[in-house]
């Protein structure tokens, strides 16, 4: 049984108590420590800047050409905080409860409470950095409500909240570069973790411009490398998002948790052809006024406008009358898939559902709708060429967010001492389903407010330990393995591209380990993944050299995806219940609702790597709920 090291005491006092008792490193000693932070998204940039401000020396890595381009930049909707500025009854406890319930009671009470508690500081910090959040006419901060909660707690900067929050963190990071406390390594990819005496000792990286393999030693390593939803190939994520950093750490001993819990977002643009490389997210706010429907008749070929009202199936309103078109993400996505699979899908590939604004336009007028969603309608037209004021939008579910990730304890430390995981890279706070606007929050809170306490608490015991040398055999070994893998990928010289394998793997996973899963499909998927992986090592063609070569970068990531995909299936197979994003077809009510099994599965699955030919070992972290009662999530 895994121990998350949750502090004693009442829920409300745990974090305060932790901070009061955390060990400190005196300022003179901080200078002697070197900390590696991989990732410059909200989690990585905020952590690196905050540690540097305390006096530590930090090396910061990212694969993009600038820290400012990390994927956090793409988040649109907003960030949650229990400020209660609207005087609508919000508070830390309510936000904690909403998050626990939204996660289908599969997250840790203590972590979630801390998240809600620290949300207050995040808004203060961002405003101080100059983040131009939306303001009311009186000059005070504005906010709005978002996905399935009854209060207004989402702060936003137009549709570019992630960009503005990230620029705040990036600027703080650049400031530390200017005073020499942070050294940045852009266009660098971490390819392995080095472990010495059981502790994280550094990383191996590849310079993506020169191809040079480098060794970096440190007293602590932080992975803030984001989510791996891109494993499905088609997703709302940026093209470079990957699971390699955490996966390679996993193979060095860090446990992976809740690996198969991946949020599939209901309102993305559908795939329009095999050339497609990504699925653009349309803001969820559209569901406030848009009605979702499909033709009642299977395979109906008529144009949407030609289908009369009584031949339309508003399936969310039909199945979930209380929440209707605003039902939570997992439920809405699953309901769409159910209709599409039953032959009611629309669009050229029959893979979409309609999101219809005609009623809203009739009732509120086109001007009002334009005012509310003008930029989104424009974006839709830019991408599809369709005017959504005249005909309904077409939307479709798309992989979006990974609740799973490296297992961490209350201090955000993995099972490898000295290795921390922050942001979307850890499994942390969202349970089996993440609430909208909670992940920008989690990434920021991890980096600004949690790691700057917990990392020093670890380092305090390392003061007399000398920093490992990059000449240590463990570094040599790790470097040799990295070189060998790159050479191997370049040497296959088959006929098929990396993208071919990535797309095939993605489609396979989406069908068998996506929105819904069953034991038979998952077992088949494991076999299929292995066969595809064999073919990859036989038929892959990476052209070009070992200098700047994007095909080589992609090949390494896809190689890891095969192993990760297999663990996702195993994780999904072993959990015989439905919860949040994990919907096992065998465990549902007769009207298709999820059946959770609290008696047997109220735990976090954490998996230990046992080698390429041996099956992963399952470790359990029991979840205990002392402050909330486990209930059935109902949106009917």
């Amino acid at each position, binding site marked *: 049984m895994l121990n998350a090291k949750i502090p004693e005491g009442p829920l409300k006092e745990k974090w305060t108590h932790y901070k009061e008792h955390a060990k400190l490193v005196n300022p003179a000693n901080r200078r002697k420590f070197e900390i590696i932070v991989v990732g410059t998204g909200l989690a990585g940039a905020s952590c690196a800047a*905050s540690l540097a*401000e305390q006096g530590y020396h930090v090396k910061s890595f990212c694969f993009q*050409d*600038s*820290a*400012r*381009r990390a994927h956090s*930049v*793409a988040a649109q909707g907003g960030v949650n905080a229990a*400020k209660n*500025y609207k005087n609508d009854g919000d508070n830390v406890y309510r936000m904690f409860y909403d998050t626990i319930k939204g996660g289908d009671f599969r997250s840790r009470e203590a972590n979630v409470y801390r998240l809600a508690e620290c949300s207050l*500081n995040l808004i*203060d*910090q*961002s*405003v*101080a*950095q*100059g983040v*131009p959040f*939306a*303001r*009311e*006419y009186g*000059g005070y*901060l504005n906010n709005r409500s978002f996905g399935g909660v009854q209060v207004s707690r989402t702060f936003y*900067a137009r549709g*570019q909240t992630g*960009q*503005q929050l990230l620029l705040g963190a*990036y*600027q*703080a990071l*650049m400031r530390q570069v*200017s005073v020499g406390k942070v050294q*940045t390594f*852009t266009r660098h990819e971490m390819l392995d973790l080095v472990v010495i005496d059981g502790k994280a000792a550094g990383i191996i990286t590849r310079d993506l*411009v020169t191809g040079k393999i480098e060794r970096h030693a440190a007293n602590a390593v932080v992975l803030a490398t984001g989510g791996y939803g891109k494993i499905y190939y088609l997703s709302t994520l*940026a*093209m*470079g998002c990957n699971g390699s950093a955490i996966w390679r750490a996993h193979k060095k001993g860090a446990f992976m948790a809740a690996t198969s819990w991946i949020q599939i977002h209901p309102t993305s643009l559908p795939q*329009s*052809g095999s*050339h497609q*490389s*990504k699925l653009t997210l349309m803001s969820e706010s559209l569901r406030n006024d848009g009605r979702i429907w499909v033709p009642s008749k299977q395979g109906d070929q008529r144009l949407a406008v030609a289908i009369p009202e009584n031949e339309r199936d508003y399936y969310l309103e039909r199945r979930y009358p209380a929440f209707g078109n605003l039902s939570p993400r997992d439920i809405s996505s699953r309901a769409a898939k159910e209709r599409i699979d039953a032959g009611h899908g629309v669009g050229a590939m029959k893979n979409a559902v309609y999101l219809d604004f005609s009623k809203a336009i009739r009732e509120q007028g086109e001007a009002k709708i334009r005012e509310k969603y003008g930029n989104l309608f424009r974006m839709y037209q830019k*991408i*599809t*060429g369709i005017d959504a004021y005249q005909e309904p939008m077409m939307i479709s579910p798309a992989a979006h967010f990974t609740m799973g990730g490296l297992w961490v304890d209350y201090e955000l430390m993995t099972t490898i001492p000295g290795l921390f995981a922050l942001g979307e890279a850890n499994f942390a706070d969202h349970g089996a389903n993440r609430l909208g606007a909670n992940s920008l929050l989690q990434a920021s809170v991890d980096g600004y407010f949690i790691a*700057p306490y917990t990392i020093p608490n670890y380092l305090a015991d390392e003061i007399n330990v000398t920093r490992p040398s990059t000449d240590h055999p463990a570094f040599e070994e790790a470097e040799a393995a990295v070189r060998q893998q790159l050479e191997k990928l370049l040497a296959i010289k088959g*006929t098929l*591209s990396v993208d071919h394998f990535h797309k095939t793997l993605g489609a396979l996973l989406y069908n068998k380990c996506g929105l819904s899963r069953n034991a038979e499909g998952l077992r088949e998927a494991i076999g299929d993944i292995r066969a595809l992986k064999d073919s990859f090592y036989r038929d892959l*063609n990476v*052209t*070009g*050299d070992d200098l*700047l*070569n*994007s*095909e080589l970068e992609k090949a390494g990531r896809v190689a890891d995806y095969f192993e990760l995909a297999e663990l996702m299936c195993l994780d999904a197979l072993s959990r015989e219940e439905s919860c949040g994003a994990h919907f096992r077809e065998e465990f549902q009510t007769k009207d298709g609702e999820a059946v959770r099994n609290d008696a047997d599965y109220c735990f976090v699955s954490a998996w230990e790597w046992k080698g390429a030919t041996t099956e992963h070992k399952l470790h359990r972290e029991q979840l205990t709920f002392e402050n909330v009662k486990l209930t059935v999530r109902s949106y009917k």
Partner: protein
Amino acid sequence: MKIHLKIWRQDSTEAKGKFVDYDLSEVDAHMSFLEMLDSLNELLISRNERVIEFDHDCREGICGQCGVMINGRAHGPLDHTTTCQLHMRTFQDGDTILIEPFRAAAFPVLRDLKIDRSAFDRIIQAGGFISANTGQAPEANSIPIAHETAESAFDSAACIGCGACVASCKNASAALFTSAKISHLAQLPQGKIEHRVRVRKMTLQMDAEKFGACSDTEACAVECPQQISISNIARMNREYLVTSLFSI
């Protein structure tokens, strides 16, 4: 549709580059411009050739990583649109498209269409921030900011740092980029405190990076995907003037 491509190929910063011709015969009008390049790369792989290197990540116009010159225009023929947001339906069957990297002394080519824009990071390092350590912040609502001020600061802050402004300017000036950050921060009460030092240091760094001088042609603002206004440059110049007067 059929498309003829002339693409800049260059092995490394030091190597000489040249245009190479490629033909694509099955381009789907719904493809994005970058998906068209993906399909060309698939073709090159099947021919055992090295792929075309180009930068991209989010593919939805916000990360600023993409950006090439398309028929002589930064990000292509549409105003205020990034390369990743451009679709092939903008072109005609049989068109010839010339693709080359953003060119500027401060943006050396790394390989093919990839360039080094780290000069932008160094301009921000010089002063593009508010010095607020984690933990120092007062309660957010203790600094009221007028709605219009916040909106106007946002307009400047929206810059994605793609470099199209530099590439479109005959002097390769970074004035639009630099002034956007200066005016984002200078408009906010939190940012005003440091604005003199900021303006001096950032403009000095801009010059040190081999960006040219701004000669008010306004070409940059036409291409800017985020519609960053030319008025930011005027504000920067004003702030710079005041700063110089005070520092005498």
